[in-house]
């Protein structure tokens, strides 16, 4: 079954076509990697899928429904959660509260002005589960800003995961991580994909990570999808090699 489909999706910034005519299908339960050189439009495509940016052309369908007209909050409530390329957390709130509020915002009861203790406790339990899964539980009480960079990246995944999404968008989760942290993050992502049966769309620059994790790979170049296939097929694809050789890296 197809969980996510974009049809002719495009976004321009002035004269720049950051994403152009992208038609992408992701099947339920797969782990799809999205690769492409710097500036290829990967993050912009994530914004279009999660609703943080409006497309200038095309549609997004999630579980068969056209969600193009829905804003980001509504798409999140339908089951699309995401992380950001540039770490985006609530710095002064505790690690636990970062995750708990993610649960609360999706679960509801947000306009309980007084009391709401049962609601707070229920969301806290789920937040603890999620933090435990990512090995962050022992730092739950610290302000999120105090965590080292690698743990902040994991915290973002914990926030998204605690929302029990059907589709998880991860924008370069290993960016700026040491080799050890990268290995740990890869292990976490593999476990999530296996245990939670969540569909994952992953932007990643590290090819080892991509070929290690992905069921299928899509390649974006100058805003366009130029190839799609299994990791092995993509590895041998000449167009992809040219795109990378021609890219700014």
């Amino acid at each position: 079954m197809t969980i996510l489909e974009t049809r002719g999706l495009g976004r321009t910034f002035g004269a720049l076509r950051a994403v152009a005519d992208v038609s992408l299908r992701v099947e339920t339960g797969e782990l799809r990697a999205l690769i492409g050189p710097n500036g290829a439009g990967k993050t912009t495509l994530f914004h279009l899928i999660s609703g943080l940016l409006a497309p200038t052309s095309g549609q997004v369908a999630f579980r068969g429904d056209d969600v193009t007209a829905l804003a980001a909050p509504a798409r999140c409530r339908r089951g699309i959660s995401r992380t950001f390329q540039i770490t985006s957390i609530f710095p002064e709130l505790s690690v636990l509260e970062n995750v708990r509020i993610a649960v609360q915002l999706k679960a509801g009861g947000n306009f309980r002005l007084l009391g709401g203790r049962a609601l707070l406790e229920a969301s806290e339990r789920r937040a603890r589960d999620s933090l435990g899964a990512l090995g962050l539980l022992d730092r739950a009480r610290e302000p999120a800003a105090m965590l080292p960079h690698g743990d902040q990246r994991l915290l973002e995944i914990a926030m998204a995961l605690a929302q029990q999404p059907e589709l998880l968008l991860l924008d370069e989760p290993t960016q700026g991580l040491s080799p050890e942290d990268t290995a740990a993050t890869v292990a976490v992502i593999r476990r999530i994909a296996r245990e939670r049966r969540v569909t994952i769309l992953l932007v990643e620059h590290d090819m080892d990570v991509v070929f290690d994790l992905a069921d299928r790979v899509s390649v974006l170049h100058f805003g366009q999808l130029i190839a799609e296939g299994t990791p092995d097929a993509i590895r041998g694809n000449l167009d992809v090699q040219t795109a990378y050789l021609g890219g700014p890296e």
Partner: protein
Amino acid sequence: MNGPRALALAALAALAALPWVLARHQLSILTDLLIFGLFALSLDLIMGYTGMVSFGHAAYFGLGAYGSALVLVHSGQPVPVALLAGALLAGVVALPVGWFSTRATGIYFAMLTLAFAQLLYTVAYKWRDLTGGSDGLAGVPKTTLFWGGPSLATPHAYYFLVTACVVLALLLCRALVRSPFGRALQAIRENERRFVALGRAARPFKLVVFVIAAALAGLAGALFAPFRGFASPEVMFWVLSGQGLMMVLTGGIGTLIGPILGAMVFILIQEVLSSYTEHWMIFSGAVFVLMVIFLPGGLVGTARRLVTRA
């Protein structure tokens, strides 16, 4: 018993005992300080907990003052009726203002709130038939606690009314910021874009807290009018909005109790300085600058740092 609770009980005991210790005019100053403490407390809800810096908060204090003054002057109802009217008027006016202003964020939000406040000030100034224009409404009586009930015209009685209102408002705000709604506000303050990506639009939250803060500022204004016996356009002027920001920062933003103390200290410093020199504004400005530099987090923030270090 833990530290904060012991402190709170001690403060309550002091508030209860002070009327028998202080001289009449001192009690009157204390009442005044508490009223502005309530005003600063209400501003902390939007500024400290939601990250919305309003430059027009005095408008709601003023609306509360006029609402209460009109009820008391024209109908002689008990004071609580006037308080309700003042808070309600401020809240109702804040609804459309908030609806427009929350379309913007940051400095644009601040400018919109300022523009609306100046507009309301002008209305108060020009609508002579209703507001008395620049003279304002004078002779606002401190009526009774309820129909046929005890008079509030003594300094003691009115002091206790104000104290009760401030304590209740503080407890209300405390519950509010700890509720699911209050937690959401703090997440908006920390990172609005993240908040939105997690499944809720921020604007409804901002609008609701803006109206609540306005109603509480209105309550402060509604207490003020009968206390001083008048309501005039000055109480809606932007200067008070600016002083509100300084009170919150002096006491400790995002701490609730801090802004109440901040308002008290801020006004006391002004009172003391102005009794020594006519150039007091220079000195009170300097005191404020020094506080911001050397006491980051305000009085309460600094005190907490010292306690955790000790």
